[in-house]
């Protein structure tokens, strides 16, 4: 039972999600990691270093899913599993790959019970579906935050492939959110802010606390819609799904759609004026009060305690 894992590559580097997906699927069989892109060498070296990688396959070319999904389909004949993380690239690509193969994919997997049995959340995580997939080839996406990362210290061979890829689509602009904080989807600590912050300027309270803690920054849909935070900080059913060891929610009441994104958090701390807010009720620790009073004091107190990450 062999696995073709398609790596997530961001600006030439291997995205943290890939190591987690690798550890999730390593038990299914030998894993070949496919790295696509024009500057894929560094990412390929990182993939070769991950424990569980049997081979790294590198192919240059345009990364537009109409083109590369056909190349992946051509490559998939030797594999039982074709897998990627359930990030925005995997969500875009893998259903296309599956349809080309005439396979029903199983996506956003949070648990692998057996090589043909998987658990995935539905209804924004308010129910869990256990599915059996007896198709000859399995097309899967894995929720990276639900798994620990594979260790490093391997030296898998790297092979170059020449895949012909012709895309009808042209990338004409990218709008990256400049950030020196960790990757939100895989961060160990996340500080999230809601619409109660009131403005993009006030949202910096969240950003300062996050920086102090070496945490990634999250936001609710309402805060993003209001323009307080960029879209890629959105956590929830339609944004990113996080599973940090610690989530600090500031001024977030806890709409169902937001709760969907944080159910994997090990510990939740809520700072809110409303003791009845849904998120306060499910938090492990809550502090009731005005965030504009609490958050600066908390940041200063952590500074005083010498907290550093």
């Amino acid at each position, binding site marked *: 039972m062999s696995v073709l894992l398609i790596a997530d590559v961001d600006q030439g580097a291997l995205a943290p999600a890939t190591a987690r997906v690798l550890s999730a699927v390593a038990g299914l069989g030998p894993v070949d990691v496919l790295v696509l892109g024009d500057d894929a060498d560094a990412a390929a070296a990182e993939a070769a270093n991950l424990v569980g990688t049997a081979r790294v396959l590198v192919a240059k070319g345009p990364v537009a899913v109409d083109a590369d999904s056909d190349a992946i389909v051509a490559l998939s004949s030797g594999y039982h599993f074709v897998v990627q993380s359930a990030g925005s690239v995997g*969500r875009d690509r893998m259903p296309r790959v599956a*349809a*080309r193969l005439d396979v*029903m994919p199983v996506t956003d997997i949070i648990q692998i019970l057996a090589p043909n049995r998987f658990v995935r959340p539905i*209804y924004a995580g308010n*129910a869990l579906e256990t599915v059996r997939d007896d198709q000859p080839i399995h097309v899967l996406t894995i929720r990276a935050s639900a798994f620990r990362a594979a260790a490093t210290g391997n030296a898998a061979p790297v092979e170059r492939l020449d895949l012909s890829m012709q895309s009808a689509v042209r990338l004409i602009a990218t709008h990256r959110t400049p950030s020196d904080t960790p990757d939100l989807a895989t961060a160990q600590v996340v500080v999230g802010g809601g619409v109660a912050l009131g403005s993009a300027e006030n949202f910096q309270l969240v950003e300062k606390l996050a920086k102090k803690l070496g945490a990634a920054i999250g936001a609710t849909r309402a805060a993003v819609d209001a323009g307080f935070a960029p879209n890629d900080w959105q956590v929830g059913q339609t944004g990113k799904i996080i599973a940090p060891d610690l989530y600090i929610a500031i001024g977030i009441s806890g709409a169902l759609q937001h709760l969907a994104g944080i159910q994997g958090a090990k510990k939740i701390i809520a700072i809110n004026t409303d003791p009845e807010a849904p998120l306060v009720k499910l938090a492990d620790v809550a502090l009731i009060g005005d965030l504009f009073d609490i958050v600066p004091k908390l940041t200063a107190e952590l500074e005083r305690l010498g907290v550093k990450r």
Partner: protein
Amino acid sequence: MKILVAIKRVVDHNVRIRVRPDGSGVETTGVRMSMNPFCKHAVEAAVQLSEAGHGDEIVVVSIGPKAANDVILTALAMGAHRGLLIETDAALETLAIAKLLAKVVDEETPDLVLLGKQAVDDDSNHVGQMLAALTNRPQATFASEIKVVGQGLEVTREIDSGRETLALPLPAIVTADLRLNTPRNAALPQVMKARSKPLAVRPVAEFGVDVAPRLVIETISPPPERVAGKTVASVTELAGIIATDLSTMEAL
């Protein structure tokens, strides 16, 4: 251009769902149903393109039980011109849905197919991409902006690292994200008028598509419940807890 919009009737997104104790699924009887929110953004996008002079005809298709007529009527009230219900009482898998839609694309030959990026019941996020694969069309998923430029589209997508803009030729498939637009609520005269717009109902069998499920759903269970925690009284106490947590956290 001609625009096809595919929409789904789902449990209303404000309903707190209940998982049946026997593990057979989520309770949907007696529960408020409505158009999937992402589909509403897709319909709105089609109507706005039409209002800007880019859409000659908007055809709306839904696949589901007779009651799914409701969501087609909603779309017709929003400004779509014609509806098609592909009737089935079975809960079809996304691959079967995409195959049925591919047949509709063959019949209707739309320049643009708009869909919601995912349905909030199964959260699959498959159908647009599958339809693009089956019809050999380029795709732009998770759209937050759609512009008609020359003979093609420029679509801005919301992705994990921010946003990106793609240029794609028509015909194409685009799936809508939440910030694409603000869907309108149709006024009563439009709702009345929608009832006189053409709405065809055709059984799934007529399309000659194999819709047999590929997967077996073994059980549907509720997620593990979180137990309520404690309330602390001061910032100092909270800071102490956070400092302890960080110092005991396993290094990754």
